[in-house]
């Protein structure tokens, strides 16, 4: 029984990282209908930036994180402004290819600039700090990741539901031309969306970094976050988070009781299944464009 509960707890912990990445992807998708495959590497470069601040400038972790969050937001806005907005006659496929291109450039840059050897980022909570409750191990870092994921989910949900800016973002996704007609500066909205998304993704990166940092560290969380976002319906923030936790728990139970070898692919098998049974995802209500 202890093993079963430990697997659930581990699944929730893993799911929190997926949830943050899933949320970040959903934010951009909600306004542009583009899955951003550079999401992981945007978080990666922010994490290495924080590491650089901590190791070379010798500033406090809190200040370094604050500057890094600002860096993440600026990076997202910058990429949108300098690269994506310049795409001529953009269509979704073209934009996806551009995000893959950005992903490769950022990954290459991090490998070149910071090297490929594993590192750990100094952080007030150690990677293996935790407590044992009734034989169940709970990592403090995992608790912090869980809190961050739930915090962002609630804040973003309220933001999209009740704020003017959130409404403008929704309008931009549903009909960009109509949004412009009613006075929404859609370019600015897109830029802000990328900034917010980058910040949310960077949180995942920064919380992974105290354990092990290496240039490929965001690959798996990004893919699983994307899988969760697809399962959740790509436009639903709570959907992405719930799906991320489901994915984390299923992966852990599957690895523990069925096959550890196929643990990684189970996420993608679930996506195929969900897309076959409910193509719009488990939690999304799709807006239908009327002619």
């Amino acid at each position: 029984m202890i093993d079963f509960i430990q697997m659930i707890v581990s699944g929730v912990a893993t799911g929190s990282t997926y949830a943050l990445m899933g949320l970040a992807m959903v934010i951009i998708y909600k306004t542009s209908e583009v899955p951003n495959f550079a999401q992981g590497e945007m978080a990666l470069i922010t994490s290495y930036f924080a590491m650089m601040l901590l190791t070379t400038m010798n500033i406090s972790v809190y200040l370094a994180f604050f500057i890094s969050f600002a860096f993440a937001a600026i990076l997202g806005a910058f990429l949108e402004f300098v690269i994506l907005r310049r795409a001529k006659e953009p269509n979704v496929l073209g934009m996806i290819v551009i995000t893959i291109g950005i992903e490769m450039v950022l990954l290459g840059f991090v490998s070149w600039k910071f090297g490929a050897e594993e590192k750990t980022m100094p952080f007030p909570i150690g990677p293996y700090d935790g407590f044992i409750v009734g034989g169940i191990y709970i990592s403090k870092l995992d608790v912090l990741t869980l809190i961050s994921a739930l915090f962002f989910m609630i804040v973003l949900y309220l933001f999209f539901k009740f704020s003017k800016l959130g409404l403008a973002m929704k309008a931009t996704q549903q009909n960009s031309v109509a949004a412009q007609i009613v006075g929404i500066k859609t370019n600015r909205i897109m830029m802000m969306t990328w900034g917010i998304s980058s910040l949310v993704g960077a949180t995942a990166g920064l919380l992974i970094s105290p354990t092990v940092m290496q240039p490929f560290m965001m690959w798996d969380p990004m893919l699983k976050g994307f899988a969760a976002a697809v399962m959740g319906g790509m436009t639903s923030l709570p959907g992405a988070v719930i799906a991320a936790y489901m994915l984390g728990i299923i992966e852990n139970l599957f690895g523990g009781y069925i096959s550890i070898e196929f643990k990684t692919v189970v996420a993608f098998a679930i996506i195929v299944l969900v897309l076959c049974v409910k193509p719009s995802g488990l939690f999304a209500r799709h807006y239908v464009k009327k002619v």
Partner: protein
Amino acid sequence: MKKRLMFVLFVSLTFLLSFTPGLFAEEGVTDTEIHIGSYGPQTGPAAAWGAVPRGTSGYFKWINDNGGIHGRKLVYHMFDDGYNPAKTKAGVKELQEGTGIFAWAGGVGTSPGLAIKGYLAKKNVPWVGPATGSREFVNPPQKNLFAVYPLYEGEAKVLVNYAIETMGKKRVAIAYLNDGYGKNGLRGALTSLKSHGMESVAQVPFEAKDSDLKPHIMKLRQAKPDMVLLWITPGQAAKVVGISKAMKFDTQFMSVSTCSDFIFMNAITKGAWEGVITGTFGEVPDSKLPLMAKYKKEIFDKYAAKEERWGIFYYAGILFVEPMIEGLKAAGRDLTREKFITAMENIKGFKGVGPEVNFTPYKKGDIYSRQGTSQTFLVQCLKNGKSKRLTGLIDTK
């Protein structure tokens, strides 16, 4: 008219022959240069092992600055294959058929190496010190390939033997990477267990890109082992040991030589690596061996990039090709591949910063005619990444 024709023919022949230097000289060898090829991941998931070809590069620069070999400089052609066998094959073919390489040195990884093994054998291009201890490189042995890295299989056997015979362990679990590297370790561990009339209590496969390792640790814990052999990547091994200790999963961890850089492992586990026992294919980074100190001072300090670290992967790049330099020296000024291979076959009792190297003339079916090293020793990580030598050199055969 006839004289004129002869003259035209002479000029034409001279012109044509200027494009075919290989007709008279050995491929990749000129009056002043020897062209050596290598590859290794500078990007991608295995990029941490990319320090191996960079170490080789520093070593060759040092050789050149000390006069080269019989008046020739080594020209080192290294490319980034991203640990992708398709890229390895394309890159090796391009260099071999485009530039013309005399011999290959090092080359990181089992899968990339296996992608070019047959190609180089067919062309009979010498290859010394692939950076892998997989048995597939010497079984069956091939004339052109000289392996320096002790076999993973033998290393795993030594580790498990030590656990059972010296430490009295009875329940051995094996965590292995689900590829050639991991499976070679698994095979060696199972052989040792079988020879002691035992079986493993758990065999847990890892994929290279697995980042959530808690399910693997749970599997290991469920088996209640008193020793866990880790044949996975250094990053994964660090996570497994760190999380296990936090979970109060109290067992003896042992691991492969790729995880024997204790200063590094201790740093990324925040001290949790203390107590782990590994095999090692050469000296440890803080070794007091004079040759190690010399290499560090004259090669690493002089040629390594600022971000480079004097870690096991860097100096492994030296260790794997030290015998190649011995072979080139012994082959003499009149260098051909055949002479070089013969010189390599005559290497006996060579000692650099790795185990003793011995080769013998090629003999079909005798893997030790091409597997130059068969010794390892065990070390244990102490506080602050210091190491304690547990054994002398042990034969891995």
